[in-house]
């Protein structure tokens, strides 16, 4: 059967180059998060902005959490999209923050450029992971010709009634008729109830 989904798996592996790329972004996320957590002032200075240290540290925690999720989950796609959302937040923060001192405008422009580049990479990775999954459009919808019954459906109905349910699996005799339409327990107000080895009659 030819595939409707682009085959992107690396040779002999279940992972694709986009999975590897996602893992790389996961490590990057953790490294950046650790830097933001440990050195918020240096990060602020490099970006040429004035923001509270607590905010930078908060973003660091977000980066670490996203990175760990990317590296541990069986499907990184939603977490890469979470990175894209985080990128948007970072861009908005840098764009709106007041500039710092000593050539801060130039640093701020550089920081925005770097953030846009990372966003582009994240977007590319997330889109590729999405397209690898293919979505429901790749479903082949019709297996109605596969009954699995070589002699046909009609012949198959009840063909295994010769099978005797093992005693350890059969419902207790006293309870079996409860689920059997038309059967009546002797304690019921009326009706006959007969149990034999082959079931209720």
């Amino acid at each position: 059967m030819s595939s409707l989904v682009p085959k992107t798996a690396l040779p002999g592996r279940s992972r694709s180059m986009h999975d590897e790329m996602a893992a790389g972004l996961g490590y990057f996320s953790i490294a950046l998060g650790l830097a933001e957590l440990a050195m918020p002032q240096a990060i602020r200075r490099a970006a040429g902005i004035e923001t509270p240290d607590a905010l930078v540290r908060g973003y660091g925690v977000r980066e670490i959490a996203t990175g760990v999720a990317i590296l541990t989950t069986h499907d990184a796609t939603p977490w890469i999209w979470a990175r894209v959302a985080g990128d948007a937040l970072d861009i908005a923060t840098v764009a709106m923050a007041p500039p710092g001192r000593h050539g801060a405008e130039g640093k701020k422009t550089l920081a925005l450029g770097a953030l846009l580049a990372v966003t582009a990479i994240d977007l590319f990775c997330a889109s590729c992971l999405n397209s690898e999954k293919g979505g429901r459009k790749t479903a082949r919808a019709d297996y109605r010709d596969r009954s699995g019954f070589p002699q046909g459906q009609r012949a198959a109905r009840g063909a295994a009634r010769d099978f005797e349910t093992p005693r350890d699996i059969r419902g207790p005799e006293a309870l079996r008729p409860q689920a059997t339409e038309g059967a009546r327990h002797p304690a019921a107000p009326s009706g006959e109830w007969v149990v034999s080895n082959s079931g209720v009659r």
Partner: protein
Amino acid sequence: MKALVWHGTADIRCDSVPDPRIEEDRDAIIKVTSCAICGSDLHLFDHFMPGMKNGDVMGHETMGEVVEVGPGAKHKLKVGERVVIPFTIICGECEQCRRGNFSVCERTNRNKALGDAAFGHTTAGLFGYTHLTGGYQGGQAEYLRVPFADATHIKVPDGIPDDKLLFLSDIFPTGWQGAVQCDIQPTDTVAVWGCGPVGQMAIRSAVLLGAKQVVAIDRLPERLSMAEGAGAVTINFEEESTVERLNELTGGKGPEKCIDAVGLEAHATATIDSMYDRAKQAMMLETDRPHVLREMIYVCRPAGTLSVPGVYGGLLDKIPFGALMNKGLTLRTGQTHVNRWTDDLLRRVLEGQIDPSFVITHRVPLEKGPEMYKTFRDKQDGCIKVMLLPNGASA
């Protein structure tokens, strides 16, 4: 030899690994002619099942030809014989094996302490599964070492294609046991949640066992179409309410028999309980997503039976046990006692009552196996069952 090897979450590779050799008296080695990817392999692939180690060989649906036999198995197996290997490793001698409860064999889990710790008491060793069940190397490979081989095999005749016999290893007896556990009566409506390979086999087993009506529940059109092929009434739970439709099909009383062929990774969409499960699972506060179990308990007719061939691994939350108790439901579970059923099922295949090969949608060489894991998990290309062909064999 080549084998499909687990390296971590969603990372399976076709690697070269050392050939297996006879290690114990009762071992045999088989040359694998065909094997398959099972739905429960996906639980390992996605790492929902604990106890996997980097380097584990995957696979527990395998058949092939005996190429070497240990001295303790020679009275039952000969080189050249064609065998299907059940996924449960059995000693054939312990108290549970003597009773036919092969999936809880007391002697074949070589990591018994882990099994005891996880489940209270050990269960049988399984091929290509977690180290909780022995950590035995699996059969998605060119060769397989079969421990306790004098008991752990199903002899099959020549002249029948592998396609028709391979699934005696797992999904066919698993679906069958799922239906048998329902003790089906001619008046019964049997509802089957999940139309993956085990669900498809359970549907056909329920038809063969003479259910009045079989209802198949899933969300994937291709799987529902395959269920329709067997004569099942289908419910797409993304398009209609499962509970309402089941009640409508049973005069408001609910199905007498319910089969959970989904297990721990239920994909219910936009229900409160499924969102709750996903959130708890993400926070590692719950291991499994039991939406199907909850729904079965709710909709099953009072005094009915729930059968659970779907695999669960650990801790489940918010099970409506009050409904289960007050409605007097019978709950039957368990890994499959494969050898208990296979003589009978082989006869039914040979007589033409059923041809299990209907379920195969993809046949690929072993080397393509890793990427088929993803195809199967993501339900791409209408994938329902992948058959793998090592050794350049043609099935």
